[in-house]
């Protein structure tokens, strides 16, 4: 059964016979990673923060390996190095030693702690362990210590990411702060360092003062420095996170995030409920309409018009839509990856006349399909072929459908390479992980500027196909 629930009038919903993950026991070629990975990425966006995974060391090593090959940056993640005896007696001692050593070696400003499946299974209580640790070290000045519970058997890397963001807000926010004019919080989700840079620039251009959580624009895309420092520069200062309730509003990207109380509730909604900070829940600003919403929100919050620079970026984007139209219209794409990114891409593709015939994710949000349909409808245009949105699926199922669909292009992580090769169509690399191209950290997808860049890449890829496959060998197209 396909998990995507959709209202009756939505002609886009199709039910295929291919089994989905909910029907089968094994996942073949998963389209998701595990929760602590997402949590570690989020922790890396805090100034002077080092992540610690409480559990067996293999996960930390594997996760580092994956993050490093994507970002091509050092990524230090510590582990409390569970050994067999810890599975019987608990890992409190290892946890304390780990924390001691980490603090003395790195002198971090924060340690972001998350669990792995092992420590979760034996029921380790991180909060209590932290309490004990604080009591034992009450004479010392400790770094901020934040714990997030991230068992991978209840969620994916995207969930781990959001859990960590919410945990940071919940554990660090100070009570009773007055609002400060011009302050906004931005919770962007798992986007690229290049995107983060751009978002900060945009918000600041409106005269607003953003607290971006997380902000790994520098920590995961650092320059060459003559002096190597153990903890990279950059990241959101802990002090700023503490003052998140001072903001006049929070902007939270992600349509797949939960709207009701529960595990996947975004940090923005938490802040709204607990500290009375208005939360604007937007989609990832990919494409014109989602970017418009973002800019419009900023304009409202700042009481200022959209700066000229971005108005012209918008009009250039529109202009390129017009220019590229003939190469794109009627093309069909398969898109996969993190739910929020897929929703954003689907919205963008629908705008440029490319039908995202299959939108897929390994995530398990209940809002995925609705959101895909919401952003791909209401354009006045109707594709004569339905948009299928499925989540909780693996690549095997995605590929099986994709092969039948015979799309013109694929958009997603490096893991789609085999499909692209088999179908002999271009793979536009977006999302995580990208380990077979350089520059994943710089890919800009967001805002008018990011969309323009993405638009060029997609259009050029299709133009190249046309050129390469033409018996005439177009020199001028």
């Amino acid at each position, binding site marked *: 059964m396909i998990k995507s629930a959709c209202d009756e009038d939505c002609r886009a919903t199709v039910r295929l016979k291919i089994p989905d993950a909910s029907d*089968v*026991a*094994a*996942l*073949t*070629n*998963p389209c*998701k990673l*595990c*929760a*602590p*990975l997402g949590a570690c990425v989020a922790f890396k966006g805090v100034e002077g923060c080092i992540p610690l995974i409480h*559990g*067996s*060391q*293999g*996960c930390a*090593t*594997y*996760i580092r*390996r*994956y993050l*490093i090959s994507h970002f*091509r*940056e*050092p990524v*230090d*993640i*510590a*582990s*409390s*190095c*569970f*050994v*067999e005896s810890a*599975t019987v007696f608990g890992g409190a001692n*290892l*946890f304390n*030693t*780990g*924390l*001691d*050593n*980490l603090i003395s*070696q790195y002198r971090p400003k924060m340690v972001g702690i998350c669990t792995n*499946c*092992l420590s*979760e*299974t*034996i029921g380790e209580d991180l909060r209590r362990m932290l309490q004990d640790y604080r009591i034992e070290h009450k004479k010392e000045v400790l770094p901020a210590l934040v714990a997030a519970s991230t*068992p*991978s*058997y*209840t969620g994916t890397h995207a969930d781990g990411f959001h859990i960590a963001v919410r945990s940071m807000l919940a554990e660090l926010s100070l009570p009773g702060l007055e609002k400060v004019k011009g302050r906004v919080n931005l919770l962007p989700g798992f986007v690229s360092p290049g995107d983060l840079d751009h978002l900060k620039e945009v918000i600041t251009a409106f005269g607003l003062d953003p607290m971006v959580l997380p902000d790994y624009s520098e920590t995961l895309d*650092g320059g*060459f420095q*003559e002096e*190597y420092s*153990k903890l990279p520069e950059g990241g959101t200062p802990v002090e700023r996170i503490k003052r998140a309730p001072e903001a006049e509003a929070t902007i939270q990207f992600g349509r797949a995030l939960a709207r009701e109380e529960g595990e996947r509730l975004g940090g923005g909604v938490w802040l709204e409920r607990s500290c009375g900070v208005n939360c604007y829940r937007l989609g990832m600003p990919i494409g014109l309409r989602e970017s418009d919403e973002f800019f419009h929100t900023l304009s409202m919050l700042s009481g200022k018009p959209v700066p000229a620079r971005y108005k012209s970026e918008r009009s250039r984007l529109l202009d390129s839509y017009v220019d590229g139209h003939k190469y794109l219209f009627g093309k069909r794409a398969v898109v996969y990856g993190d739910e929020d990114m897929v929703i954003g891409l689907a919205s963008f593709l629908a705008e440029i006349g490319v039908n995202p015939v299959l939108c897929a994710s390994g995530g398990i949000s209940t809002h995925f399909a609705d959101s895909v349909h919401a952003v791909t409808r209401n354009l006045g245009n109707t594709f004569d072929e339905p948009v299928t949105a499925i989540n909780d699926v693996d690549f095997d199922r995605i590929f099986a459908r994709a092969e039948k669909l015979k799309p013109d292009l694929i958009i997603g992580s490096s893991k789609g390479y*085999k499909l692209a090769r088999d179908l002999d169509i271009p793979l536009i690399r977006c999302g995580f992980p990208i380990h077979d191209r350089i520059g994943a950290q710089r890919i800009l997808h967001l805002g008018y500027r990011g969309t323009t860049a993405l638009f060029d890449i997609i259009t050029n890829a299709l133009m190249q196909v046309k050129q390469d496959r033409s018996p005439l060998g177009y020199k001028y197209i």
Partner: protein
Amino acid sequence: MSNKEKLPETTAMLADILKSYPPKVARKRSKSMVVNDPETIPEIQANVRTIPGIITQRGCCYAGCKGVVLGPTRDIVNITHGPIGCGFYSWLTRRNQTRPDADGENYMPYCFSTDMQDDNIVFGGEKKLKLAIQEAYDLFHPKAIAVFSTCPVGLIGDDVHAAAKEMKEKFGDCNVFAFSCEGYKGVSQSAGHHIANNQIFKHVIGRNSKKVKGKFKINMLGEYNIGGDAFELERILEKCGITLVSTFSGNSTITKFEQAHMADLNTVMCHRSINYVADMLEKKYGIPWIKVNFIGAEASAKSLRKIAQYFDDEELKNKVEEVIAEEMAEVTAVAAAVKPRTEGKLAMMFVGGSRAHHYQELFSEIGMKTIAAGYEFAHRDDYEGRRVIPNIQVDADSRNIEELHIEADAKEYLARKTPEELAKLEKEGFTFHDYEGMMAEMAKGTLVIDDISHHEMEKLIEAYKPAVFCAGIKEKYCVQKMGVPLKQLHSYDYSGPYAGFQGAINFYKEIDRMAGSKVWSLIRPPWQNSPELFAEMADA
């Protein structure tokens, strides 16, 4: 950087590194860091627990079992029993290559996982596992299915072996077996190698006694076909007329594993990961083993000669000499071209359980010196040589790993050499089970450090500024930010092969490129050389 400059003295260097640790950590780490003396090899502490909170490059038992030993076999469907991450992370990340036969059977591009969910953790995952095995069977009808346990599985008590047995009996034509390789076992991936070796020995080797054609039949143990190494070795052996019965496990198939006992000699490349199988094959089937090294052209030649000497056949000996001469012509030419640029430069390598030793050969062939080296997951014998095995203390972490009790097989045991032949070989100076370890071949005064930490690595690089640092992707970008190129010896930086003769040529060229890269000379912008201007600009 040339070593004409005054380099810090190694003993002082160690003291300096230890100074920055809390006393307890310093005490523990000091035993794992020694100044080498090949004459009187000092004792080094290895294969001990990693200290929590010290960032280690080590992986887990599961990684050693599934990722390293079983990963390169193409026709076994590998199912990871656990939550999703472990399976995802070990999906094709080791870059072992394979060349499928005409039947096209190759499951290496796949990652199968039971993707355990909450209710499996609470109520057990055996049922789901059996369903997954059934699905894999229905989908592919493979010859074999292997199941790998991850951390939570051991804890919730799923009996993976019973499940495997049940399914194997049910299918009748598919060998199903499981590995209790939960990540928390042992202290590194090394535990996983041992567990993998045991199960392969129990469930696979010896199941197929069909005669293998060929006069000189060998197995290659501990060769994982990273970057196509095995292909190069297959080429060389074939050229010499030596039959490769099976490789554990580069470019391998389950059928070849099953026939491994039909070989007459086991050659061991990576001693750490597979010496257990070599020992067991000798006890049960009478196949002796020798240590070989095909990393480095000279080392390759030496290894070939040793194999020929074992078979004691004039024709083979001549053929081997002929092949060596032919191959070495190109090797020597490239080495000579590269050497003027690499001679005297320093290298460091901290990797694996054998590579940090083997690759020193390649560097020395182009005149580079290894000033410091160490393994990530090796044991004392890999450093100090097999003679220390009786003295190695087995600690609690390793004690739980099963030691199989092996006896000679009533039907299949066959002594490969007569006592006279053995005596002759011995007289010629031929030795079996002869791993002398890394330290015997490293110069006096060089540094040997086990399971090096980030901090130690930084200190060493700062002090010696080597021309090339060899490790893995986890260290790569951090070392390069220190201005030193890093050569990945796990994945070969997506190139290779580096084994054998053609491999040596590839490696020389690659190191030449790295050590000669111009990018490091661009670090300083012009304004850094005119501080007055810089200050003015800052004031403005």
